[in-house]
């Protein structure tokens, strides 16, 4: 991979090499014959389609020389024809813009050379790089009086079909999916998996019990996001489990909604739970009802319900935003048992301070497994734990190795751990 940006460039390489060798010798002759130019022309200029993008971008690179200094800027020129009029698109001091500044990972860019200049030409409002059309570039080194010109090279920007920089992301997805699926399969065979306690979930029975004793309703909220949010999905699953208990005890359930589709899905979920609990007769279609999607009108109305109907228990599951405390504080004042579960990490402080029990982050996703004790779900938890253990190991070992790399003066560990970096 020595100095190669990716596969996309390879086929045209030899041809271009040949072309610039020719140009180079010609220009060398030219420079030699006219003699005494203080500046060396930029050497080994090449242009290539930037890998892993949607097109509209071309990379340029050329060899740096020891004479590169801040007072001798490079100027980059572009043209649509090889012999056409060249337009300047950039100017920068000659001791800037090195290949080492590229943020891409090693599996795309190989070893980055500190003695190679790199410049990325992007399509913008002044320069439109049309995909699959060749553009011609040259780089000029100047010191104000004299200037030295590189050969002209060309490349076409192409939209790519796979962003290799995201390969690590894809591999993690595949590996983790496999782990989860295997863990589920394993749990089916061997359903007795230890699960630690989550106090908030023990309280679910207490909450339903209290509602039954006092004859007051249970209020359940599925959060502020729509159905495409994973927290909402988790909230609907937990609703199903709670509805089963509610159905068994014959307690009143109220589920106000901010999103009509979530409401419709929750109607199905609750109905199914009543059926599973053997109480389809007790199911009320209006248990799930829509209020409004407006962020603060919704809590205003829910607060009204809390004050007027005095629910025995309030559940807040799913994703929440600033309105969280508007929902939980009046609830706390009515003396209801409040159980929250959210992955909105920014709202956790408010749930912690105003609810009796709060499922923190991942516990929300784990809750359905706890409540149902179904091997399929419990197996997933096992898979999640394996994933956590893996990343925990990566972080600890990685930090140690990266530190060791500093001590030994080698960047090899740092480079290796790009495997766990995020690249666009």
């Amino acid at each position: 991979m020595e100095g190669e940006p990716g596969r996309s460039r390879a086929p045209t390489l030899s041809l271009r090499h040949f072309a610039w060798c020719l140009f180079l010798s010609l220009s060398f002759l030219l420079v030699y014959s006219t003699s005494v130019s203080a500046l060396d022309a930029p050497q080994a200029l090449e242009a290539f389609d930037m890998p892993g993008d949607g097109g509209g971008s071309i990379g340029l690179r050329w060899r740096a020389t020891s004479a590169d200094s801040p007072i001798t800027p490079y100027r980059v020129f572009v043209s649509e024809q090889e012999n056409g009029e060249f337009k300047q698109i950039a100017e920068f001091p000659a001791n800037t813009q090195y290949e080492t500044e590229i943020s891409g990972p090693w599996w795309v860019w190989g070893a980055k050379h500190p003695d190679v200049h790199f410049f990325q030409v992007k399509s913008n409002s002044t320069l439109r790089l049309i995909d699959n059309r060749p553009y011609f570039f040259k780089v000029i080194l100047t010191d104000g009086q004299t200037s030295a010109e590189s050969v002209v090279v060309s490349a076409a920007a192409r939209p790519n079909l796979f962003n290799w920089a995201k390969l690590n992301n894809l591999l993690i997805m595949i590996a983790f999916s496999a782990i989860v699926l295997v863990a589920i399969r394993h749990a089916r065979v061997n359903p007795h998996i230890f699960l630690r306690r989550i106090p908030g979930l023990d309280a679910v029975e207490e909450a339903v019990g209290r509602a039954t004793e006092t004859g007051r309703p249970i209020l359940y909220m599925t959060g502020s996001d729509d159905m495409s949010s994973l927290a909402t999905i988790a909230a609907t699953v937990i609703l199903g489990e709670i509805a089963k208990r509610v159905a068994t005890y014959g307690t009143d359930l109220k589920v106000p909604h901010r999103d009509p589709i979530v409401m419709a899905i929750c109607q199905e979920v609750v109905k199914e739970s009543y059926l599973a609990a053997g109480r389809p007769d007790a199911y009320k279609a209006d248990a799930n009802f829509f209020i409004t999607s407006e962020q603060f009108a919704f809590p205003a109305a829910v607060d009204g319900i809390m004050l007027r109907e005095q629910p025995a228990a309030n559940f807040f599951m799913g994703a929440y935003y600033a309105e969280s405390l508007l929902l939980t504080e009046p609830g706390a004042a009515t003396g209801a048992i409040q159980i929250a579960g959210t992955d909105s990490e920014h709202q956790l402080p408010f749930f912690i301070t105003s609810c009796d029990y709060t499922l923190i982050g991942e516990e929300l996703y784990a809750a359905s497994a706890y409540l149902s004790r179904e091997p399929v779900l419990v197996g997933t938890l096992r898979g999640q734990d394996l994933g956590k253990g893996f990343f925990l190991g990566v972080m600890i070992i990685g930090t140690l190795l990266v530190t060791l790399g500093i001590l030994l003066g080698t960047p090899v560990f740092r480079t290796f751990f790009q495997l766990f970096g995020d690249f666009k």
Partner: protein
Amino acid sequence: MIFWKRSLPVLLTFILGVTFALQYYVPHPASEALLSEVSVWNQIIAGFAAILGVTSLLQVHYVKIRRREPGWGYSTILYLSMLITLVVGLWSGGESENSAFGWLYSYVLVALSSTMFSILAFFIASAAYRTFRARSTEATVLLIAAALVMIGRVPLGEYLISGSGQVSDWIMTVPNTAAQRGILIGISLGGIATSIKIIFGIERAYLGGGRE
């Protein structure tokens, strides 16, 4: 029939889930176009679903009015204010500049929402008073962190205790970052596992059906 009712939705979820998971890795403009197209589709579906929501709301309040339940008068107010907004909005063609619809937005909706939003200031104070008690070590840590950050955030704090700003910044950037990262990594694994279960048809609660 069971295919249409059960298997088709699960199959559809699988195909779409895999497609859109892979879409992320394809930088081609066509793939970006697919993503933006599907987000428009979601908006359109949500647009139709709005009818479902409004019907539910009107139904609840219609029942209250018909049965003359306590507070049925407020339900008529709700009906009226919704109707007026609808009529004004359609009459203004949805334009909010220099129109009655814009007036409703600025003087009714904004006034109400910013008031409701500002009530949080009261609740944050009452929640602090009620819960920030040194009941246990955890609770003590919680309240000390909160108090330190609060002091460091305002001019008076910096004025009285110099360096409180730095302390507050340090708490935010070091221990807070650490905890947030831990939470985020946990959430991500839980979330991905949920997605995987859905895509592979293991979790089907959203279809109103049980599990595999």
